[in-house]
């Protein structure tokens, strides 16, 4: 019963989606202010989602069965990841051992669902988007996991999110060490790529391949993809806050840290042009992975 409540209402579905949609509004509003515009009202993303549910859903003639299944899979995965992260922050007692590993896997699922859905939609531009998303996943997963390994080494082998918070409560935030700082920068860039934010939005490149992977989606399937993205927009900054600046995570401080990381991401998004897919891969496999490996080595030496 409690698990269902957690999944559907409080740190799960309802809460994370609402928080994610509001975070999406913060993103649009800050972007607008940077561009000297006014920006949309706070309920804009909610209106978008309700509108998409009211629209017709078109299924292309040659689409496979996974066309409608994959948005659902991605959404369920993202909600489950948000739930596990939320439970370990709000109810640390009821989190389970090794939930960090489960979260790493669950955060992969939305990207896999996007690839699956795009490649089953029988559209050439969608398949371009799917292949780019696949390369992007190959690019950012390695440094992301290396930066999380740095965290695990720094905390002495803890693979439980509430354990990592406890460690930081007694020994101070991880970001204040050399390796923790490096790992935070790497994880921030990887989160940017996971969200598909601008320097790494090759899969969705609006101006180039017309919404790429999402090109054939309409109505509630598109709404589910938007909700998945909203869920990730809530879950990833909270995960970064838990892993690196998780000293005091009472609701007010958590909201402040969440907004801090979110604003950092939005500023990176608005001050960089989109990279080509080969540049993205070179960036992630070159400097970012070397940086992440350096952070891991420093952590092994206790820095």
């Amino acid at each position, binding site marked *: 019963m409690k698990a269902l409540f957690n999944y559907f209402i409080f740190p799960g579905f309802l809460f994370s989606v609402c928080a994610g949609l509001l975070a999406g509004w913060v993103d*649009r509003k800050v972007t*607008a202010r940077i*561009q*000297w*515009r*006014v*920006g*949309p*009202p706070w*309920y*804009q993303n909610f*209106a*978008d989602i*309700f*509108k998409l549910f*009211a*629209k*017709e*859903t*078109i299924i292309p003639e040659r689409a496979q069965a996974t066309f409608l299944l994959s948005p659902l899979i991605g959404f369920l995965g993202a909600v489950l990841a948000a739930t596990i992260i939320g439970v370990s922050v709000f109810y640390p007692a009821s989190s389970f051992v090794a939930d960090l590993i489960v979260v790493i896997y669950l955060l992969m699922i939305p990207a896999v669902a996007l690839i699956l859905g795009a490649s089953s939609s029988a559209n050439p531009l969608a398949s371009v988007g799917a292949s780019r998303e696949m390369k992007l996943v190959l690019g950012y997963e390695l440094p992301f996991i290396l930066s999380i390994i740095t965290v695990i080494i720094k905390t002495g082998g803890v693979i439980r999110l509430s354990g990592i918070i406890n460690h930081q409560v007694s020994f101070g935030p991880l970001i204040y060490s050399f390796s923790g700082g490096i790992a935070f920068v790497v994880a921030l860039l990887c989160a940017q790529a996971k969200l598909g934010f601008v320097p790494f939005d090759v899969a969705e490149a*609006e*101006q180039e391949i*017309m*919404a790429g992977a*999402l*090109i*054939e*989606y*309409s*109505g509630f399937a*598109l709404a589910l993809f938007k909700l998945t993205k909203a869920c990730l927009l809530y879950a990833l900054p909270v995960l970064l806050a838990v892993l690196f600046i998780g000293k005091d995570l009472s609701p007010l401080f958590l909201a402040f840290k969440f907004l801090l990381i979110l604003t950092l991401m939005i500023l990176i998004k608005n001050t960089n042009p989109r990279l080509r897919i080969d540049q993205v891969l070179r960036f992630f496999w070159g400097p970012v992975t070397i940086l992440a490996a350096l952070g891991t080595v420093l952590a092994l030496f206790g820095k």
Partner: protein
Amino acid sequence: MNLKTKALTKSIWAFHVSAGSCNNCDIEILDCLTPRFDIERFGIQLIGSVRHADVLLITGAMNRKSVPLMKRIYEQAPKPVFVVAVGICACSQNMFKDSYNVCEPLDKILPVDVYIPGCPPKPEAIISGIVKMVNKFKDKNK
């Protein structure tokens, strides 16, 4: 006014179709997105795929090449979708009326909801046209 109508009027995603215009109306449509007019504050966005569209902004005179494409694009858009004829060419063909390859005005091909005349129409005129379209939709769905 129910929730569905409200959501439809508060979040309008526009798909921009050029049926062979001289690019002037297209630039004026892009002007609506600039900081001076900023139509994103009303929830209006320009989107890349016709599958996400709520409004088709069609510019230019219909010629033999673009008529079948216009019909196909209209069929590809998820309903309810609105068609806005932007510029005098899309409304009534303007000076291309007697041209050899121009077929017929847009409203003989698709059900047009709003006409925005002008060569090109000012961004204010485009925004006013969209507001009229929204009001028409609200009156219809009271």
